[in-house]
């Protein structure tokens, strides 16, 4: 007893011990009696935004529902709510759920294509200002209603191991030259030409391609928890075919397909994988063949200079390719084909031509839409600030500057 008294006497001489005791008494014990976080918060993993009726916004929340079970499947529910603003709709969703809506775990925001017909940053405003939502959250544009999309995603999560976040992560790495996140969207929006790329996934009922799941149909409608409504089961197909929308001022100006994206990728050089195809190719071995090359690596160097007051961009594109598929009208001699380690000179010339035409197509696409996805303005401004300023002053429309930039593309093809 005396030892304990002695210990207390010594301990109370240490101010930190008193602070520790204070924290334990006033914060430690009360927190033991608090509800679990999942009872207080609805854990949302994806948000869907649709244009609602009478200027309302329809918000759908893919919400994690903690249910005790013996397998590893996670249960999700889609909760829909409508409001004059996103915040109001989320508040209503919280009311339906009887929990505060927690956005800390949101990884994806799905936005209906209709929102991008006007300035989509209006719908994204609350989510940008909200500190709980990381700016690295992915954005997906879809042709279907965002709520339907989330219902399909919910099914995908439970029926298979395919997750929409994985698809987007894959796209960011392998398909788009840019990421499709809030961050990349705003980086584009605050650049000179205010242009950004947003990934595009379609949802259809009659597609033979893509991932098909049985999902609740539109029949439910209205707000609240979808499980409480009668719904008819329909087959929905989520199709990730590498499309993206090109936005200017947060508004859609073009829908780019995967071919356009591949061309843009060649110009940016910021992707890890892809193919390049040359048609009707003839040399010593092949006759009128279609050759498919796998792009192993790509290095693009851009250098800016001014000639007679106009900018010239010299682009050197080093492409490291491997011939992986050859198709000829008459079957080719396999013996000769598998012996091929080096690409013939004719093939190199054809590939160079293909690279040049692809980059030319990509640039005309950007010129047409006055979108500088390649960050050419930054390159010009950073390397020749005074000349760039003078050049921009000569233009009637600064946004149209890409039309006055000459691109000189010099590709070099290497066989690996």
């Amino acid at each position, binding site marked *: 007893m005396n030892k304990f008294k002695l210990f207390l006497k010594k301990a109370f001489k240490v*101010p*930190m011990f*008193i*602070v520790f005791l*204070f*924290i334990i008494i006033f*914060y430690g014990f009360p927190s033991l009696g608090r509800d679990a976080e999942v009872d207080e918060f609805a854990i949302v993993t994806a948000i869907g935004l649709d244009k609602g009726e009478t200027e309302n916004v329809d918000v759908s929340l893919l919400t994690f529902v903690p249910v005790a079970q013996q397998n590893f499947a996670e249960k999700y529910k889609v909760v829909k709510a409508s409001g004059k603003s996103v915040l109001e709709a989320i508040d209503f969703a919280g009311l339906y759920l009887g929990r505060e809506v927690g956005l800390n775990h949101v990884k994806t925001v799905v936005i209906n294509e209709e929102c991008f017909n006007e300035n989509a940053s209006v719908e994204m405003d609350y989510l*940008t200002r909200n*500190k*709980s939502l*990381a*700016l*690295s959250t992915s954005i997906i544009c879809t042709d279907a209603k965002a709520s339907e999309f989330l219902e399909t995603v919910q099914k995908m999560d439970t029926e298979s191991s395919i997750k929409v976040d994985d698809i987007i992560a894959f796209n960011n790495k392998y398909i788009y030259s840019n990421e499709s996140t809030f*961050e990349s969207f*705003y*980086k584009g929006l*605050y*650049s*000179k030409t205010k242009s950004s790329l947003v990934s595009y996934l379609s949802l259809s009922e009659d597609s033979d391609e893509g991932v098909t799941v049985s999902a609740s149909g539109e029949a439910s409608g209205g707000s609240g928890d979808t499980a409480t409504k009668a719904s008819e089961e329909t087959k929905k197909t989520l199709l990730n075919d590498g499309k993206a929308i090109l936005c200017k001022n947060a508004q859609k100006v073009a829908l780019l397909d995967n071919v356009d994206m591949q061309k843009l990728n060649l110009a940016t050089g910021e992707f890890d994988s892809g193919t390049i195809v040359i048609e009707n190719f003839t040399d010593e071995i092949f006759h009128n063949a279609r050759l498919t090359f796998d792009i192993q690596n790509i290095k693009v160097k851009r250098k800016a200079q001014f000639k007679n007051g106009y900018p010239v961009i010299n682009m050197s594109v080093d492409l490291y390719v491997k011939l992986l598929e050859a198709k000829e009208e008459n079957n080719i001699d396999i013996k000769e084909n598998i012996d091929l380690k080096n690409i013939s000179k004719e093939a190199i010339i054809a590939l160079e031509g293909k690279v040049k035409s692809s980059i030319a197509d990509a640039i005309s696409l950007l010129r047409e839409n006055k979108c500088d996805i390649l*960050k050419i*303005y*930054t*390159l010009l*401004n*950073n390397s020749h*600030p005074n000349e760039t300023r003078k050049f921009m002053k000569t233009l009637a429309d600064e946004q149209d500057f890409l039309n006055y930039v000459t691109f000189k593309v010099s590709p070099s093809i290497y066989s690996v």
Partner: protein
Amino acid sequence: MKDKTMNAWQAGICLFIIIFANKILLLPSLLYDIASIEGAWAYFISFAFELGLITLFVFVKRKYNYVSFAELVRKKLGVITLKIFYLLLALFFLCKLVLIYNVTYIFFKDLIYKDSGTLLFIISFLPIINYLALSSMRVIGRTMQLFFPIILLIFIFCTTTSLISVGEAPLLFQGSALNVFLATIKHISAFGDSIFLFVFMDKIEYKKADGKKFYLMSGLAILFVLLTMFAFYFSYTYTSFMHPYAIFETMGNIKDYGGLGRIDSVAVILVIILTYLQMGIYLKAFVVSFKEIFPKLSPVYGVVTFDFLFVIIISLIVRTLEKTVFYAESVLPYFSLISFVLVPLSAITFLILKRKRSDE
């Protein structure tokens, strides 16, 4: 006597912490907001002043090695000037403490403790910094020495990983000279921290070549601040103004970290350590200044006075991020006159007087 002093290395580490700590969260984003990427010039200009202040300290210390700055002021300028002088210094340290606390509090409130009030935060911070301020100089020096390698390690990890993830170049040459000037003036209060050296002047053991240690540590701190700033601007380019917490955000930009989870929490540890340490140094400086104003009162009164004023200011005056930024941009720059005008002018006066005397 030894307990009442710290050696030049320890003082150098304190200098490193003070210069480095309060420039790696809000400042890069605020400077970008005013002068885009050219806001970086504000760093160079202000650091030039900071180095000037350190040089002045080294000169004064060389001439008056065992004399306190307060004693110099008392002898050369009189007791009333001393009281006013140290009242202003105490006010300066109090204001800086309020700023540092608020920035860190808002940072943590935004990121982790959304529902907790300032009380929990005060309980976590005040007792520890109070304890540090009441400890001897040697204890403070050793604490800084202990945490210094940890700070170095965490910082090197943060910067290396964030610099690897840097992708594109920011847009240069957008800010005008006027904007750079405005950015410098508005945020000058984030600099000039090295005046704490003058307050601790007699408590720092100084030998002939110790000046190098101050330059080395301040140089290292400046390099670290600039590295953080560049990693931040190159990570976020056009959207740098949207990301208020520089060192934390640069870690958030890292994508390829395998299955490590959120590594931005590493930066949070750095922010916690730095906040405690720099608040400890500032509070010690406040207590020393308080002692000069009221020499008969025990340092405990200094700490209690600080706690009282501090709680009033943070509970009633500076509560939100907006108010903190307003306070930092509109009120604190006036207090920088103390560090960049009052202290240097008096230091130069003392040096001239010493020279005249030796000439005579």
